[in-house]
C-alpha cells in the first residue's frame, strides 16, 4: 500500500511541476507517454470498437436485471413501503453523478498536464452524460422526497451540493463549446473541471457535516452495509449496470467525436484540393 501511495504522490507531483512550469514547452512524456499510444485515432477506433459491445450489453443486462429485481422482487421497506424502490434508480444515478465528475477531473488533468488529445475529447464527452445522470439523480430524489419527506425539495446540504454539481457539469458543457478554437475550449474546460472538483468531497461528507433531512450513507466501501442483503444485491447490480452504461455511452460518444474530427479533416482537405484545381 505505501508503495502505491508513493507512485500516486510522484504522479501528482510531476503533474503539478509540469502544470506550473512557467515556460510553455512540450511536456516530457514520462507517465503520459505510454498513454499517448492511444492518441492514434485509428488505433483508438479499432480498440474501442472491440470494447464497446462488452460495455454496452452487460451494462444493459445488469441495469435491467437490477431494476427488475429491485422493482418487482425485493421486499418493501418496513417504514417507507413500496416507495423505497426509487432507491434502485436514485442511488446508482447519484453514484454515477459523482464518479462521472471524478472521471471528468481525471480526464482534465491528463488534458492539461500531458496534452493528451483523447483526454480533451473524453472530458468534452463525459460532461453532458454526467449532467444527464445528475439530472436523473435530482429528479428521482425529488420524486422520493415528495411522499417521504413531504416536500419536493429542501435546501439541505446534500441536495444543494448535488445541485451545484449539476451546474458545474452544465457550465463545463457550455464552456467547452464556447470557443471558436476547440483547443482553447478544452484547456478552459479542463481548468474549470479541476476547480469544480472541490465539490466532490463536499457532496460526500455533506450528510455527516450537516445533519438534515437527507439520510447518511447506508453502504460504504469499507465496513459493513446497513442495507439488508435482499435490497443490497439489486442495488449493487443496478449500480454496476449504470456504471457500464455510462462508460458505454461515453465510449460511443468518443468514437463519434473522433470520426467527426476525421470527416471534418477529410472535407477540409477535399475543399483545399478543389481550390487548387480551380
Amino acid at each position: 500500500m505505501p508503495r502505491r501511495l508513493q507512485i500516486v504522490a510522484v504522479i501528482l507531483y510531476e503533474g503539478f511541476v509540469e502544470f506550473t512550469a512557467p515556460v510553455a514547452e512540450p511536456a516530457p512524456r514520462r507517465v503520459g507517454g505510454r498513454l499517448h499510444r492511444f492518441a492514434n485515432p485509428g488505433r483508438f477506433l479499432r480498440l474501442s470498437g472491440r470494447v464497446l459491445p462488452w460495455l454496452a450489453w452487460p451494462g444493459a443486462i445488469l441495469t435491467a436485471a437490477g431494476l427488475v429485481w429491485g422493482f418487482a422482487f425485493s421486499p418493501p421497506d418496513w417504514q417507507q413501503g413500496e416507495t423505497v424502490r426509487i432507491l434502485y434508480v436514485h442511488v446508482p444515478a447519484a453514484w454515477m453523478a459523482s464518479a462521472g465528475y471524478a472521471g471528468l477531473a481525471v480526464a482534465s488533468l491528463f488534458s492539461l498536464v500531458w496534452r493528451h488529445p483523447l483526454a480533451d475529447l473524453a472530458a468534452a464527452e463525459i460532461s453532458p452524460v454526467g449532467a444527464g445522470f445528475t439530472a436523473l439523480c435530482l429528479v428521482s430524489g425529488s420524486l422520493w422526497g415528495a411522499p417521504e419527506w413531504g416536500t419536493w425539495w429542501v435546501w439541505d446540504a446534500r441536495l444543494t451540493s448535488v445541485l451545484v454539481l449539476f451546474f458545474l457539469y452544465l457550465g463545463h458543457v457550455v464552456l467547452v463549446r464556447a470557443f471558436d478554437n476547440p483547443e482553447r475550449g478544452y484547456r478552459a474546460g479542463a481548468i474549470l473541471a479541476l476547480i469544480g472538483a472541490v465539490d466532490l468531497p463536499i457532496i460526500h461528507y455533506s450528510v455527516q457535516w450537516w445533519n438534515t433531512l437527507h439520510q447518511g450513507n447506508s453502504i460504504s466501501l469499507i465496513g459493513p452495509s446497513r442495507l439488508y442483503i435482499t435490497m443490497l444485491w439489486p442495488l449493487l447490480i443496478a449500480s454496476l449496470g449504470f456504471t457500464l452504461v455510462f462508460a458505454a455511452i461515453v465510449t460511443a460518444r468518443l468514437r463519434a467525436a473522433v470520426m467527426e474530427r476525421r470527416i471534418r479533416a477529410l472535407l477540409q482537405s477535399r475543399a483545399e484540393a478543389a481550390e487548387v484545381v480551380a
Partner: protein
Amino acid sequence: MRFSALIGRELRLSLRHGGDTLAVLLFFVLAASLFPLALGPAPGVLRAIAPGIVWVTALLASLLPLDRLFGADFEDGSLDLLLLSGLPAAAVALAKAAGHWLVTGLPLLLIAGPLATMLGLRPAALPVLLAGLGLGTLVLSLLGTAGAAIVLGARRGGVLLPLLVLPLATPVLIFGAGAAAAGSPRAALLYLAAILAAALPLCPLAAGAALRAAVE
C-alpha cells in the same frame, strides 16, 4: 517592484474610468433597494433577510466588472506583454485580483454598512456582516479572476462568466450570510477565512494557467 506596479496600473486605469466603479456601486444599491419594494417595507421581514440581500447583491455586483478584467488587455495585446514581463502568470492574475478587490470589493464594503442599516439590520450585527463581507469579497475577487481568465476569448464570455462563477461562489454566500444571521458567527467566519486561505494560492494558479492558454 513589478507586482505593485501592475496593481498601480489597475488602480490608475480604474481612476481614469471612474464611472465603472460608480456603476457597480449604483447597481449594488439599486438592486438591494428593490427588495423592500417587492417584499413590502415590514421591518421584521427586512431585518431577517437584510444580510442575505446585502450578500446576494454584493455577489452579483462584484461579477459586473469581471467581463472587462482581462478583456481590454487581451484585445490590445497588453496581456501578451504582461505575461512576458517576467512575472509568473499566476502573479499577474493575483495582481489583477487585488486590483479588482480594491476597485470593487472595497467600495462595496464601504457602502454595505449604510445599505444594511437602511434595510433595518441590527447595529450589533453590522460588524459581523462587514467582517464576513471583507473576507468574502476577497474570495469573490479571486474566484472571479479565475473565471474571467477561463472565459477569455469565448463567444458570449460575459454571459458564460456568471454561470461558471456563481456555483463556485455558493459556499462563500452560505457562510457569509450565515455568519451575519447566526447567533455565534465565529465558526462561519473561520470557514470563510479557510476558504480564503485555499483560494488565495489556488485561484491565481488556475487563472495563470488559463491566461497562458489564452495567449498561446
